[in-house]
């Protein structure tokens, strides 16, 4: 695939590459670009660096906005050709260019970040120079933010691959030059990964590779442009869950052998005050309606996919009154594992499977919201850790289902 490149300072080598993937971010991209520049000058002044925008040929002037943002660090603009869209394509271009530049560290930032400070560059980059090969972020997040992460991505990737990465689909992360070469050599650049499954593909590839990983505390909350929340969550759900299920097929030899999980090193604790994240509103009525309607409209799929004991329990849950609604995590784990099996065996077309799973995801999310209503952030984190342990304890259910056909 042709890559469009604009390298005004003719940079051919950089110890550190800060990559900012984008599509139509002309109004927003200058901010993270300039914060990255400040961070590089403040914390890595002794290292060569470049800031790289990997774009999907945005028609709104993103290229001009990026190249026009005043920085002392050189900049490179890369783009896919017209009509090629997807964050995965952007990240692939970034990875290949980082390898060409002989980068020792690559830091990735989302283009619409509003809360980034120069210190984020340090926190994502420094662990790499201390022998970590993959750095995932740790944010302060509101308890209702990140339902796909809290209820599926974190517990499932942890149970499968044995590594505790709290934000496996965080938009900001770092990796070493060596890890970049591993990513570049992969044969797994399929449609799901090239579109928007790239974040979870990268984090789970790092988990499987046995490299040293770090979780770096960003200190502040992650604030970014809020797009349509309901539609955004649905799209994230499809991309992330579809990619995780897809990768399970290719890596069953690995995750079959994983028992329980190990903690991951932390960087950046004790670095100043922790800010309170902005509140997140939840429409509990909408969640209930999606679950209630979906359970009936997808009844045939659930009968076909869920093991009888799991299906029976789901019907019990579906019969609970709204005021007493609870979706136990063990049941949720069994549902996920049954759907993963169904995805592997194409019991239904993949897109239909993900559509069928969504009402149950909304039900689980509602249950989580109700359970944690009166809790603070730390108490909610304990609930999430307990959910993860339930996914791990339920793994024999997955093993039995998956490997017995």
């Amino acid at each position, binding site marked *: 695939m042709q890559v469009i490149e604009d390298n005004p300072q003719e940079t051919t080598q950089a110890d550190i590459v800060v990559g900012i993937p984008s599509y139509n971010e002309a109004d927003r991209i200058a901010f993270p670009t300039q914060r990255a520049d400040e961070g590089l000058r403040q914390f890595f002044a002794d290292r060569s660096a470049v800031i790289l925008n990997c774009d999907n040929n945005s028609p709104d002037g993103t290229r001009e906005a990026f190249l026009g943002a005043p920085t002392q660090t050189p900049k490179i603009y890369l783009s896919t050709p017209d009509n090629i869209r997807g964050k995965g394509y952007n990240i692939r271009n970034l990875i290949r260019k980082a390898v060409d530049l002989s980068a020792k560290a690559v830091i990735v930032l989302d283009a619409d970040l509003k809360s980034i400070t120069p210190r984020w560059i340090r926190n994502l980059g420094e662990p790499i120079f201390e022998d970590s090969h993959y750095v995932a972020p*740790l944010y302060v997040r509101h308890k209702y933010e990140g339902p796909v992460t809290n209820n599926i991505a974190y517990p499932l990737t942890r149970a499968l*691959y*044995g*590594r*505790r990465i709290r934000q496996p689909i965080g938009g900001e992360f770092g990796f070493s030059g060596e890890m970049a070469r591993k990513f570049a050599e992969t044969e797994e650049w399929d449609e799901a990964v090239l579109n928007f499954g790239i974040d979870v593909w990268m984090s789970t590839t790092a988990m*499987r*590779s*046995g490299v*040293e990983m770090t*979780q770096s*505390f960003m200190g502040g909350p992650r604030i970014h442009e809020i797009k349509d929340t309901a539609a955004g969550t649905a799209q994230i759900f499809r991309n992330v869950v579809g990619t995780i299920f897809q990768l399970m097929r290719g890596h069953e030899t*690995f995750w079959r*052998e*994983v*028992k*329980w*999980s*190990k*903690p*991951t*090193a*932390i960087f950046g*604790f*004790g670095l100043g005050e922790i800010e309170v994240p902005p509140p997140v509103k939840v429409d509990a009525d909408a969640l209930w309606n999606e679950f209630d309607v979906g359970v009936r409209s997808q009844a045939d799929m659930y009968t076909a996919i869920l093991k009888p004991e799991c299906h029976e329990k789901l019907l019990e849950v579906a019969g609970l009154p709204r005021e007493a609604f609870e979706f136990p995590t063990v049941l949720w784990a069994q549902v996920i594992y049954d759907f993963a099996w169904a995805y592997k065996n194409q019991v239904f077309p993949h897109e239909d499977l993900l559509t069928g799973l969504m009402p149950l995801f909304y039900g689980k999310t509602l249950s989580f919201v109700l359970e944690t209503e009166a809790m603070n952030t*730390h108490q909610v*984190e*304990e609930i999430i850790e307990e959910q993860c342990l339930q996914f791990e304890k339920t793994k024999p259910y997955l093993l039995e289902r998956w490997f017995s056909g």
Partner: protein
Amino acid sequence: MAKILVVDDEEGIRMLYSMELEDEGYEVVTLSDGKDLLKIVKREAPDCIVLDIKMKEYSGLDLLQEIRKKHYDLPVILNSAYSSFKVDLKSVAADYYVVKSSDLAELKDRIKIALETRIPGK
């Protein structure tokens, strides 16, 4: 037989845990403070450490970071009468955090899990 190192500055806790964990079939070594912890770990080569947090002269959270620098994969279970230390990010480096109780069922369960943990390639 797996060897468990129990680090706690209270004699009663060390005695109780020794008795209960030996009944489970473990070999138990105890330590009353964090002094020379790394030397003891090197000498005894435990399979798992149960580590108190609030000790007179040492913080279990700081000791945990020291252990992790030398023994990244050694299971460490933080054990405290206080759940409040969970808010300290340093505690994330532990395999598990168990609040002290007269019923050791949860501690025994976490020790069992920690000893069974297996990640290919590590």
